[in-house]
Structures are given as C-alpha cells and as structure tokens.
C-alpha cells in the first residue's frame, strides 16, 4: 500500500518475485558485478520513478536501483530491477527525484564541525542568515536560547562580516550587550583574524581603557574615549582566541551527531579530517570505537605530529626524528568503525586570500602589511620537505600536500620527483588546493601521477580578490579543471570545510560557472560541464583515496552510499543547481538524513 511521507518520496512494500530468478535477471544487465552483489543479500529497497544518476560511463542514467545488505544489488531498467523485489522489499517512489552516489568530501576539516555546530552562524548570505547587525545580534540571542546557554557562559558566533551587512559600520559591544548583557559573547570575524566582544567578555579578559594597543593589532575604541568598542583584530585578537575555553571531549562527542548532519544534510557520506592533530586523532579513534560515526571519516595526520605519534604507538622505534617504522603503511588505508587514516598531510603554504600562499611572481597589490614585491612564503624549507617526502614514499604512505601558490606546488613537484616517484607507481599523491598553478605544472602532475584536489568555490567567494591580487590571467587559471582534464588528470573538488560551507551544489555550480560574488567569470576557459563537476565530487574523489571500487558511482557491489536530490542535476540550468534540495541521504543503505516537511 502506497504511503506518502513528509520528505516527498513515496514508500511501500510489494509482494513479488523469487529472489533467485531475479538475481539471474539482474546479471543480464551486462553491468559489472562484484562478489558483494552476488552474496545473495535480500533486496531491501528499490528506488524507481525518477532518475538514477550512476556516474558510470557504461550506463550514465538508469530507471531503478535495488539495494540490500548495505550494498547496491542492481541498477537498470525499472522492469529488470522490479523483478528483484520480494515481499520484504520496500519500494521507494522517487516521484521524479534523482538518486546519486553519496558525495565524497575530498578535502575539509571534519574536526571543525563538532566545534562550529555549537556556535552561532552570523555570516551573511549565502553562508549564513545575517544581513544586518540587528540580525547578527538576534541570531546570537536565539542561539543562546536554543542551546539553553546559562548566563555567565560563552556565546560564540562565527562569520562576522560587516561588508555583507547593511549597516555600513562595525558592530559594537553595546549592540551585543543590549541583547545578551549577562553572557560572555565573542563573535569571530569571517577572516578568523579578529572578533567582536561584549562587555562581559572584555571583563573576562581584563581588557579596558588602560589596555594598550599591541603593535600589529587593532583595538577599536569608543568615540572620544579609550574604552574598547568591540572589535579586536590581528595581534590584539591572537591572545583572546588562544585563551578561549576549549570544548571538553564529552562536549565534542555529544556534538558529533549534529556535526555529521552538516554533511548528511548535504548528501555527503564520506568526510575528510584533512589536517589531523594527535589529540584530534585520539578523539576520532575513541568516537569510532564508541560507534559514533554514521558516515565514513578519512583522517590525514599532520606530518608534524608523526614524531609524537611514533613515540606513542611505536615506542621501541629507534629512528631519527623524521624516520618512519617499516610497518607505518599498515596503519593506513583501512576503515575501522568508519574511520580510516589515508595518508600524511604536509602543509607547504598558507591561503591566497590571506596573501600567505607562496607564489613565484609577486602579487599586484603587495603583501598583507603592504610589503612590496610580495610572493608570500613557504612553511618549510626544501631541505626539510624533500627527505620527509622521500621517507613517506619509501614507506608506502600516500602524501597529501597543502599547496595554494605555484611556488609551493613547485616544491612538492621537486620533492616528489627527487623521491623517484613516477605515475607508474600509482601512488595518487594529492596536492590539495592546487589553486594557482602554472600550465606546465600539469605536465609534472602527469609525469609523477599527482592528482589535484581543486577548490573551485574560491572563484565565487574570493574570485574578485584574486583578480585584484594576481591579475585576470593567473586568477583565471586557478583550479584549472578543463586544462587538467585535457591532460588526462583525474581530480577532485573540495570545500575546505569550514573555510567554506559543506555545500556540494555550490561547489558544482562554481566548477561550471566560475562566477564571483560580483558576477565576474574567473577563467571562462576552465569552466567544466556538469558531468565533470559531478565526477570530481564522486567517483574521482573516491579514486583519489583508493575507494573507487566501493564508492563514487552506482554500480552493483558498491556501497549503497546515496543521496536523493529533488531534481536531476544533469537536466537543470546551472543557476537552478543552487535551488536543488537534498531529500534523503543513505550510508550503506541506512537513512542518515531525511528532509523534514
């Protein structure tokens, strides 16, 4: 009997068909079938009545999909798939919706999620809801009420960006005091280089009219007075953030469910913790052991943490400070309770919008403090990077490098080449961001088998800034998907959560349009089609972490990690992509998020 549910899908179970015969029929689809598909798992669900976007070249779209035992059993024509139904099979009527493989987050910072879900989002659109200071304050107050934060405790907001508010001036302590006089309030600036405090927070940090302004910092003062007005930036902000109370492990653990909802609500079924400190890794392991993960989490421990990790986990190892035990690779590449380590993270530069990336050519606008002839800087010297890369190559650990500017990209190309790597090694070493590339660097990627994880949503959030800083030519070649594809390079696309929101549809939109906040197109020639944009968040992102056999497309035997979108992204205009909605998300066949009515 058909049953309408609040999410827009229709579900029912049917009586029908013999399992054995049906499986036989399924084999006739001519699709590749793995052992998993032949294990005889009962067909638990069949999706029909919409479009199955498989991301498989042999059958890009299909009419119906059968899953069971956490895996995909069959995909194909409605008649063939329905033939698999048993009396226990739930039939999900898609009513025109589309099923896609669950999105794979190819680079982000999962550990920011349990933190920021306990904060108020006061960003301007599209990241957050606030368009005025009054709305920022209202959101802070609403947040304190929703979370029952007692008076005297901290209310923390993030994403403060007066350039997106209508007021045309900075928020002050008085603005916040009017709504939250008895809470300590800190609102993080969108740059993460500053904040606005209320009066109780100033008192907490012992800051008043006698506090001198530190060199290289800003303390906004009230007109005609030396009393701090609210805003602190740079050197004045650094000690404030460092002294902010950190959430306890239990608080983080309790926040994990909401944290994962940031992903599942957007159809993401594999998350990345892409710069993992040792305490965070220990937290993730405990969370995994407690069965807290609904989605898969891929962790990349930071290279700086390896000496401490080795000291703890291999206490008898007697190597030098940057040598690895022979068995290191065994710790990588396998899930346990939905958590796996995939490789080492090596950061080589900073961010282009912060002007701390490392380029070969100077910026047109000088350095962050007006320095002339500014190319940014590397985080480590090549004498450090090269032997470290060689050691991880030797011990068989995949390398994920953070490199935004072309000079930082040169450094990892040099180090990889010096370590004797070629594409034939199939190491899939990943250069995360690969934003400001030079065209010939793509050839080096081909030679060395390096795969970029691009960051096209930068063209939206900071595209105008990048044109100003680097000129249209360099900015136009950022995250060069078309050029990379032409050379046969496989690449992913990421959001760098929480640097930008976890929003696969906007990521896709940016890869297709490369349109900035001001409406300028940043590099027309590097705009890809929707199919390529989709691959970079599904099959190619899965390939990048050696999971293409189980994830990233809808094919028999693969994990039933799925997202249902209300419309088929292959058939909407680019503009309408941003209007698509996630109806439901499945991780290995289990519903992990469903749209409320």
């Amino acid at each position, binding site marked *: 009997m058909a049953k309408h549910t609040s999410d827009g899908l229709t579900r029912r179970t049917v009586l029908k068909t013999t399992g054995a015969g049906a499986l036989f029929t399924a084999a006739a689809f001519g699709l590749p079938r793995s052992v998993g598909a032949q294990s005889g798992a009962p067909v638990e669900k069949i999706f029909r009545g919409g479009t199955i976007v498989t991301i498989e070249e042999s059958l890009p779209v299909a009419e119906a999909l059968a899953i069971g035992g956490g895996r995909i059993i069959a995909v194909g024509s409605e008649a063939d798939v329905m033939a698999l139904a048993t009396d226990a099979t739930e039939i999900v009527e898609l009513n025109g919706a589309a099923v896609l493989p669950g999105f794979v987050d190819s680079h982000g910072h999962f550990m920011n999620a349990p933190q920021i879900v306990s904060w108020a989002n006061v960003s301007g659109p599209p990241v957050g809801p606030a368009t005025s200071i009054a709305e920022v304050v209202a959101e802070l107050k609403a947040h304190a009420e929703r979370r029952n934060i007692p008076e005297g405790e901290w209310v923390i907001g993030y994403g403060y960006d007066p350039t997106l508010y209508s007021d045309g001036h900075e928020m002050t302590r008085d603005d916040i005091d009017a709504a939250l006089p008895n809470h300590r309030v800190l609102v993080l600036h969108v740059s993460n280089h500053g904040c606005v405090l209320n009066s109780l927070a100033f008192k907490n940090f012992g800051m008043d009219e*006698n506090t001198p302004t530190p060199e*290289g910092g800003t303390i906004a003062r009230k007109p005609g007075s030396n009393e701090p007005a609210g805003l602190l930036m740079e*050197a004045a902000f*650094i000690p404030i953030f460092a002294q902010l109370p950190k959430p306890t492990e239990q608080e983080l653990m309790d926040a994990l469910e909401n944290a994962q909802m940031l992903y599942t609500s957007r159809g993401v079924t594999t998350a990345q913790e892409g710069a993992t400190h040792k305490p965070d890794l220990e937290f993730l392991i405990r969370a995994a052991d407690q069965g807290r993960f609904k989605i898969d989490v891929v962790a990349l421990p930071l290279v*700086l943490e390896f000496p401490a990790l080795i000291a703890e986990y291999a206490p008898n190892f007697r190597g030098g400070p940057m040598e690895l035990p022979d068995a290191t690779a065994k710790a990588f590449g396998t899930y346990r309770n939905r958590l796996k380590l995939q490789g080492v993270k090596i950061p080589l530069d900073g961010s282009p919008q912060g002007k701390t990336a490392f380029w070969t050519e100077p910026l047109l606008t000088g350095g962050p403090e007006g320095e002339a002839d500014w190319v940014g*800087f*590397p985080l480590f010297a090549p004498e450090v990077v090269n032997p470290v890369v060689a050691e991880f190559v030797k011990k068989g650990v995949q390398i994920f490098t953070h490199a935004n500017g072309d000079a930082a990209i040169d450094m990892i190309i040099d180090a990889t080449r010096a370590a004797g790597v070629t594409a034939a090694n199939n190491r899939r070493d990943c250069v995360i961001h690969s934003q400001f590339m030079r065209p010939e660097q793509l050839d080096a990627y081909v030679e060395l088998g390096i795969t970029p994880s691009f960051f096209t949503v930068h063209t939206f959030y900071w595209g105008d800034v990048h044109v100003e800083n680097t000129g249209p030519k360099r900015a136009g070649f950022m995250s060069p998907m078309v050029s990379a594809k032409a050379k046969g390079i496989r690449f992913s696309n990421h959001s760098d959560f929480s640097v930008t929101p976890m929003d696969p549809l906007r990521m896709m939109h940016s890869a297709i349009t490369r349109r900035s906040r001001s409406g300028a197109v940043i590099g027309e020639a590097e705009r890809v089609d929707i199919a390529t944009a989709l691959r970079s968040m599904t099959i190619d992102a899965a390939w990048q972490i050696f999971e293409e056999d189980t994830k990233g497309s809808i094919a028999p035997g693969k994990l039933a990690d799925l997202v249902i979108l209300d419309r088929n992204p292959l058939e909407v205009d680019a503009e309408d992509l941003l209007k698509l909605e996630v109806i439901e998300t499945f991780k290995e066949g289990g519903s992990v998020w469903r749209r409320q009515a």
Partner: protein
Amino acid sequence: MSLPLTVIGGYLGAGKTTLLNRMLTGDHGRRIAVIINDFGELNVDARLIADHAGDTISLSNGCMCCSASDGTAEAIARILKRKDEFDHIVIEASGVAEPGKVARNATGFHLPLDGVIVLADAEQLPHQAVNRYTGRSVIAQLQQADLIVLNKIDLVGPERLAETRELIARHAKGASVLLSERADLPYAVLFGARPPERLDQDPAGPDLEAHHAADYAAGLVERGPMTREEFEALARDLSSRTVRAKGHVVLRNVGEVRHLYQQVGSRWTLVADGTWQGAEPATRIVTITVRGTAHDHHCQSAPHIDPGLECTPEGGRVAG
C-alpha cells in the same frame, strides 16, 4: 612581574637547536619556558628530564619546553597560566618563519619583548640567501633581528666569513652582529645580566662565564631618579655602545614604580615591573659590551621603541 619574551630565529642549520639546548640546560639559574616550532626534536640530556608529558618536557632545573603544534599563541597562553613558575619565555621561530612577525603576533600578551635574536650559518648564509624558495625568508630574518649571531665561524675560512659579513651588513644595516662557535654566547647576552647584590661584585657575575671574558665586558650604570628625558638620553647612549643592557630604572614622579629596562642590540623597552619591595629605589643597569675586534658591532643611533610598552612617566601605567 613581567615575563620577558625572546624570539630565536634563523634558517635551518644555523644553530637554533644548539642555542635552545644551552638556554634550557645551562647553569644560569633562570627558569626558561621554550616553545619549539620546527620539525625534529631537541635532544635534551635525558638525565635532566623530570617529566615528559605529550609534547611538553619539564626539566629538573625548572626549565620547560613545549611544542607549538597547536599554535604558538595557545602555547603562550598555557605558559602564562603558570607564569610564576618561569622567568623568561623563548619562542623558536621555524627555519623559514619571520621572527619579527612571530614576536609581533605575541604582542597582544603584553610581554616585554627581550629581543629578536637571529642565528646565521657563517658558511651557508650566502647560498641560503639566494635559494629560490627560501632566500627571501633568510633575508627577512636578518632584517628583523635585533641581534644577529653569526655562528659556526670555526668552520669557515676568512674569505667566506668576509663574504657572509658583507651580506649581513648589506641587508641588515645597523643590526648588532656577534660571532660565535657552537652558538656559545654568554648568558649575560642571552638573558641580560642581573645586577650584583654587592657593589664589590663583578657586575655580570656568573652570567658572563670565564671563557667569554676575553670577548665581552660587563659594566654597571647607576643613577638616581631620572626624568623621562634624562632616561631616554641614557637609553640612546646605551644602545649606541652596548650589545645588551638590562636593569631597573627609577623615574622621577613615579618613584614607587619599579621599571624594567631591557635592551638587545638597539631595541630597548621600559615596562613597569611591580614595586621596589622594600629596596631603595635606584637605577641599576648592567651593560654588556664587546671587546677587541673579533666581533662586529654596528649600532643605530635611533632606538626602536615598542609603542605599546613605552614608558609613560605620568601614570606609570604600562604593560606588565
């Protein structure tokens, strides 16, 4: 009481780790908290380690070193929670970091900056300065130094040494340059010497070790209460002829406030530093000067004054 902050910079191999080991394990009686910022590890003598928890090593002499892996500011904040247990904070800037920016990023903690000391490798510096990836960082480090320690001079011939010194003079005009082997500098230079308790004692006391006596000399400057103008004239004089000076200052009109004067190269700061605690208010500054010709000493006449830490005689209200 103020907790002075020193930043140690310099490219890889210049001797930062050797210097930090001397600071941590030397017999100088100061409790130093060191924040480490680079790959690798300090090879602290195991016999001195009292406790090793996570990335923090506590030594039996009261010194401590910790990693800045979760942020230098976070490490400073942790140390300041136990500020009574330490006499001095030292931050190691990573091999490619700009130590001046490291120091500046810490100014919000209102710690009196006791100098940016940059080590340079006498043999390698000319190569390092033209490296396509890191040459700019190497030069920026020199430019941000209050004191440049040209290290490993025992491993270099006279021609290369002259080349290295010329390079430093070109990029870091006016910086004080000291020459060293194995980063062996007097404690009086690294931390400033404490004033002697009795007048008949050597001003530098044990902080100017015997084997440095041929190269460095200590002196004691004593004054009564000074006006701000008189003090600034004294500071200009000291920073033009000494590499290091440290001591207490009494200012007219705010005689009850004890001020701490710290000078490294030509950078000096004066901060309020509590009260005289029963002692007779007096200006007593120990100076360190360089003897002979084995050391360079270029000094600027204009002092660098930290605006946030400037002496304000009227209210005596400054950081610390």
